[in-house]
């Protein structure tokens, strides 16, 4: 098959998929005003490289077929070829808006497979960094949604706050985006007092600034009316289509893995699960907004309750030793050599561990054959499953609502394409 034939075959298949869709919109118009529009992969409202093929009847969307794979880097294949520790930096690049959350989710899955648990202090720090990642991700979600429907100011204000958070991440991990902060059985290093005071300082001023953003949006009639009743999905459909996270809680399902299947120290913390019932874009926005407020509550409690102590589990054969003892002690040198060269060798078995990430249920399914690298590692990415409902949400609506729906779904293509 030469290149042109291949491209032809591909176009034909996509067109056939568009034509065969059962759509709710039919028209018998003498004026043939049906057209196929290609949106993306380079389009500011697709939040990355998502491509949507849209069949239009005038301004109404008759059918929509999302095309993925423009950011497919094959992380699952890579995972099979590197050790459990080596894969941690790759998790940064999945949902690149909340890398700390992915780090945490991945090591929790590996720890479950090995059968170890991080010490209490490490667990509290993991909760803090996860919730900070959630806030920064939701800030971008809200800001980008506002920008998509025309409110540019809020976008810059949200980014200003996000930038302050990234300064804290840099202070904590040494990098703004590629954090790679967690380790199997603990963290890269402890949270220093100056980081804790920086976090406290940030959250002293943040609620006020966040409320400024919200005032700009919640009392903005154009913003509310652009989202109200747009892109609705029913409760049954949302569950059946595998939606998760804020998008699922916007249809009235109080399903949050932090509560329903608690991990880390979430069952020791007091917070609410915001749930809205309309299932439209506005509800999804409201869920995110309220989740930010709950996350602030969680972080404040964690900073108060966080115990002193080590941040690495006492499992010398599974947890990477510190640098100083490696250079001075024989045992640590041996363990470091074995872990780096041969890996942590979990027992034969398979596990699935999911956490409530900022976009939804982020799960890692790992098959182990007792070797230093996973036999199969599957990433259950929430953006992928949320995007699946795109066609349900936009079909029958207006073309201009597509950007509002996509913005309120808040997908990250790094995660959807893996």
């Amino acid at each position: 098959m030469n290149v042109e034939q291949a491209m032809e075959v591909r176009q034909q298949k996509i067109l056939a998929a568009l034509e065969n869709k059962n759509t709710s919109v039919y028209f018998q118009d003498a004026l043939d005003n049906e057209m196929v529009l290609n949106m993306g992969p380079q389009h500011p409202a697709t939040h990355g490289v998502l491509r949507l093929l849209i069949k239009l009847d005038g301004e109404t969307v008759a059918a929509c077929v999302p095309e993925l794979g423009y950011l497919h880097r094959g992380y699952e294949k890579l995972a099979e070829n590197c050790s459990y520790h080596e894969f941690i930096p790759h998790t940064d690049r999945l949902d690149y808006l909340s890398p700390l959350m992915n780090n945490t989710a991945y090591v929790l899955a590996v720890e479950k497979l090995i059968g170890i648990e991080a010490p209490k202090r490490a667990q509290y720090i993991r909760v803090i960094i996860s919730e900070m990642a959630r806030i920064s991700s939701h800030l971008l979600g809200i800001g980008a949604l506002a920008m998509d429907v025309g409110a540019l100011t809020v976008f810059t204000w949200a980014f200003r706050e996000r930038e302050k958070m990234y300064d804290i991440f840099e202070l904590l991990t040494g990098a703004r985006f590629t954090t790679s902060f967690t380790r199997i059985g603990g963290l890269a290093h402890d949270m220093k007092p100056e980081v804790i005071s920086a976090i406290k300082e940030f959250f002293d001023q943040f609620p006020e600034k966040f409320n400024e953003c919200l005032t700009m949006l919640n009392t903005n009639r154009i913003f509310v009316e652009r989202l109200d009743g747009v892109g609705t999905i029913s409760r049954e459909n949302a569950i059946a289509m595998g939606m998760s996270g804020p998008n699922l809680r916007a249809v009235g399902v109080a399903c949050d893995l932090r509560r329903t299947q608690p991990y880390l120290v979430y069952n020791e913390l007091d917070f609410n699960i915001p749930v809205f019932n309309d299932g439209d874009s506005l509800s999804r926005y409201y869920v995110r907004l309220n989740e930010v407020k709950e996350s602030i509550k969680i972080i404040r409690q964690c900073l108060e309750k966080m115990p002193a102590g080590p941040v690495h589990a006492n499992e010398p054969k599974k947890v990477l030793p510190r640098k100083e003892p490696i250079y001075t002690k024989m045992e640590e040198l041996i363990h470091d050599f074995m872990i780096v060269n041969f890996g942590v060798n979990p027992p034969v078995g398979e596990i699935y561990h999911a956490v409530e990430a900022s976009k939804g249920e982020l799960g890692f399914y790992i098959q182990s054959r007792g070797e230093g690298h996973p036999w199969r590692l599957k990433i259950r990415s929430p953006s992928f499953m949320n995007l699946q409902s795109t066609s349900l949400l936009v079909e029958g609506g207006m073309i201009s609502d597509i950007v509002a729906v996509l913005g309120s779904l808040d997908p990250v293509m790094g995660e959807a394409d893996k």
Partner: protein
Amino acid sequence: MLTKITEKLKAQFPDSITAVLEFRGETTVHVKKENIVAICQFLRDDTASLFDYCSDVCGADAYTPENRFEVIYNLYSTILNHRIRVKVFVDESDLHCPSVTSVWPGANWPERETFDMVGVVFDGHNDMRRMYMPEEFEYHPLRKDFPMMGIPDSIPLPRK
């Protein structure tokens, strides 16, 4: 923990359940692929299980002479808050497996991804296209015999 469900499953489908495994508090049920749709339907509708949420469908290459491929269904119940894993085996000589999109419409994209990555074809799926790789790509990258560095010239590049 899920013994009640697995007992019920065994009673309902005595010939189809080949193994029930426990590891780290998680239950994996191995079933025969011919009955996967009926079993999924049962798991979704039975009042003791109510697995209304299909978290994920994925494929794996066990690289064994028989039953080389596995299709794994990670299920969750939003009502009863429990998880179960169902696994079917697909032999290389017959790469077909019934689709569960009739039970959970959300299995659509994960099944397409499984087809793309390991090459298991889902019968009854209405849109069996590749998910990530280009349509003209001939291989299935998550098979163990596909090299990690890729195969040169396997993706035709546009002419200058």
